[in-house]
C-alpha cells in the first residue's frame, strides 16, 4: 500500500453524502444548462429545456434533507447558517462547507422561482392575475438576469462539493485541485442526461431539434469529463494504480469510463428510438458510480494504515 497520509480518521461520509453529491449534481447541472439556453438560445431552447425547471427544486430539496439527516445532530442544521448564540449569520469564506451552505440556499431560491414559473407557464397551476406578470418576467430582461444569477449559483453547487473534498487532509481527495472541476463536468453530463430523460418520457412535446442539440452538448460535457478524469488521476501520481485497483476506486476504469462515458457517446449515434433513454440512463449510472468511487477512495488507504 502506497502511503499517502495514513494518519487521518475516516469521516464516514457515506450513502447520504454520495446521494447528495449525485442528486445535487443533477439539479445544478440541469439548471445550469437551462439557464445557459435561456441566455444564449431562443424561445424554442428555453421551452425545450424546461425539464430542468421541474427537476431542480425537488432534487435540491431532497439534497437538503439528505444533508440534514446525515448530521449527527440534525436538529442543529441551522447552525450552518446562523450563529446559535448571537443569531448573526454564520459565514466563513475559507470553509467550503460554510460557503456551500449559503450557495445551496441561494440556488434553492433560483430553483424555487423557476419551479413556480414553469408550473404557471405550463398551466399546471394558476395564480390568477399574477400569471401574466410571472410569464412576462420569465421572458424579459429580468428573466435573463435571473438566468445569469441562476447559472452562477448552479455552477457553484455543481463544483463546490469537489472543492470541499479537496479542502481536507484525506488521501486521494486532498492530493490534487481537480475534483471541483471534475464534479462540475459530471454535473453537466448527468444534468443534460436527466433533461433528456424527462423530456422524452414525461414532457413529450420537446422538439427533436432541441433533443439533438442537447445530445451534442452532452457529448461536449462528456468529453470535458473524460479529460478532467484523466487529469485528476494523472495529478494523483503514483497512488493512482492502487486507488483504482481497490474497491470502490476500481469502478472508475471498470464502469464509469467505458459504460458511463464512452458507450453513451456511441449509443447516441445509433439510429434507434430508445437510444436517448439508454444513453442517458448510462450517463446517470456512470455519474453515480463516479461519486461512489471518489467518496470511498480514501478508505483503503486509511484502513491499510491501521
Amino acid at each position: 500500500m502506497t502511503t499517502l497520509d495514513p494518519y487521518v480518521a475516516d469521516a464516514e461520509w457515506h450513502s447520504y453524502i454520495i446521494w447528495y453529491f449525485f442528486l445535487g449534481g443533477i439539479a445544478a447541472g440541469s439548471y445550469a444548462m437551462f439557464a445557459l439556453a435561456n441566455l444564449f438560445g431562443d424561445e424554442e431552447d428555453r421551452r425545450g429545456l424546461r425539464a430542468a425547471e421541474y427537476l431542480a427544486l425537488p432534487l435540491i430539496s431532497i439534497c437538503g434533507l439528505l444533508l440534514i439527516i446525515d448530521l449527527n445532530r440534525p436538529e442543529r442544521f441551522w447552525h450552518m447558517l446562523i450563529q446559535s448564540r448571537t443569531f448573526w449569520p454564520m459565514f466563513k469564506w475559507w470553509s467550503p462547507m460554510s460557503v456551500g451552505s449559503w450557495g445551496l440556499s441561494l440556488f434553492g431560491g433560483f430553483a424555487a422561482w423557476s419551479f413556480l414559473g414553469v408550473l404557471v407557464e405550463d398551466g399546471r397551476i394558476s395564480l390568477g392575475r399574477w400569471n401574466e406578470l410571472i410569464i412576462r418576467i420569465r421572458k424579459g430582461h429580468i428573466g435573463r438576469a435571473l438566468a445569469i444569477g441562476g447559472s452562477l449559483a448552479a455552477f457553484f453547487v455543481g463544483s463546490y462539493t469537489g472543492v470541499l473534498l479537496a479542502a481536507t487532509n484525506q488521501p486521494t481527495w486532498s492530493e490534487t485541485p481537480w475534483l471541483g472541476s471534475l464534479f462540475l463536468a459530471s454535473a453537466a453530463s448527468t444534468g443534460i442526461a436527466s433533461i433528456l430523460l424527462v423530456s422524452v418520457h414525461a414532457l413529450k412535446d420537446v422538439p427533436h431539434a432541441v433533443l439533438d442539440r442537447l445530445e451534442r452538448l452532452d457529448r461536449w460535457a462528456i468529453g470535458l469529463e473524460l479529460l478532467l478524469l484523466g487529469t485528476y488521476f494523472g495529478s494523483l501520481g503514483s497512488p493512482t494504480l492502487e486507488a483504482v485497483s481497490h474497491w470502490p476506486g476500481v469502478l472508475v476504469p471498470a464502469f464509469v469510463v467505458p459504460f458511463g462515458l464512452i458507450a453513451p457517446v456511441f449509443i447516441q449515434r445509433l439510429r434507434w428510438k430508445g437510444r436517448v433513454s439508454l444513453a442517458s440512463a448510462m450517463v446517470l449510472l456512470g455519474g453515480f458510480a463516479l461519486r461512489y468511487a471518489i467518496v470511498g477512495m480514501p478508505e483503503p488507504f486509511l484502513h491499510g494504515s491501521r
Partner: protein
Amino acid sequence: MATAVGFFTDTSICIGCKACEVACHQWNALPARDGGQVPLSGLSYDNTVSLSDVDWRHVRFVEQFSEDRSQGRWLMMSDVCKHCVNAPCLEVCPTGSIVRTEFDTVYIQEPVCNGCRDCITACPFGVIHVSARKHVAQKCTFCYDRLQNNMTPACAQACPTKSIKFGPIEQLRMEARDRVQHLHSLGAKDAYLYGEDDKILGGLNAFYLLMDPPATYGLPTAEQAKLPSRKVWPSSFRSIAASLVIAAGAFLTFGRRKKAVAEAESAS
C-alpha cells in the same frame, strides 16, 4: 488574553503507565469504550489502540526488537490533540463550534457542534471523533475548565515521570531545546523535537521530544499535515475554468443556431 499554554511530551522518559489516560477519563467523565468490553488488541500493551471519542489521551507502545529478540527497545508516547497554531479543524468548522481559547488552545463547543464531521476530514492527526453518546465531535479540551481555575490539566498532573509537561508555551519550548541538547550530550543523538517550531501547521501547542521518525509514532510529517484551505483557491479557479468551457459549449450549441435563425429570418 491569558498566557498561551501547551504540553511538552518528552517520550524519552515515558514509562507507559497510562496514568494520563486514566486521569483524562476520570476528570472528563469519559466512559470506557464499548462499555469496557474491549478485546485485547495484540498491539503490545496498547489496548486503547488510538485516540477516539472517549479516549482523548492514548499511550502508544512501539516495540523495536531484532528477530531473535536479543536486542531491542521500547518507545512509548502519550498522544493527544496537538492544539495546532493553525488548526485545520478550526479552519473548516462551518458552525463556529471549534474555537481558539484565551489560552491559545483549540476547543470544541459541544452545544454548537452539529456533527457534520468536516473537522474529522481536516485533522491530519486523526484526533477528532464523533461521540456515540453525545453525537458531536469530541477531542481533548486541554482541560479548559481546569485552566480557567488555574489548575494543571489532569494528564500532566497525573504523569509520574513528568513526561507530560504543562506550562507557558514559550517556556516549554526553551525547556525542550535544553532537554534535546542534554540528551545529545549523553549520546542519544536521535532525540529531536516534533512540532516545537512553526513548520507543522504554524506550530503545535502540544509538541513532542521523539527518538525515532514521526511515522514510528503514527505522526505525519510537515509535508503531510497541511491546512485544508490550501486547496480552496486552486480548486476554485479550475472549477471556474471548467464552468467557462461548459458555457462555451452551450454558446456554440444554442447561440450559434440562434444567430443563424435570426439571419435566415432577416434574409427572408
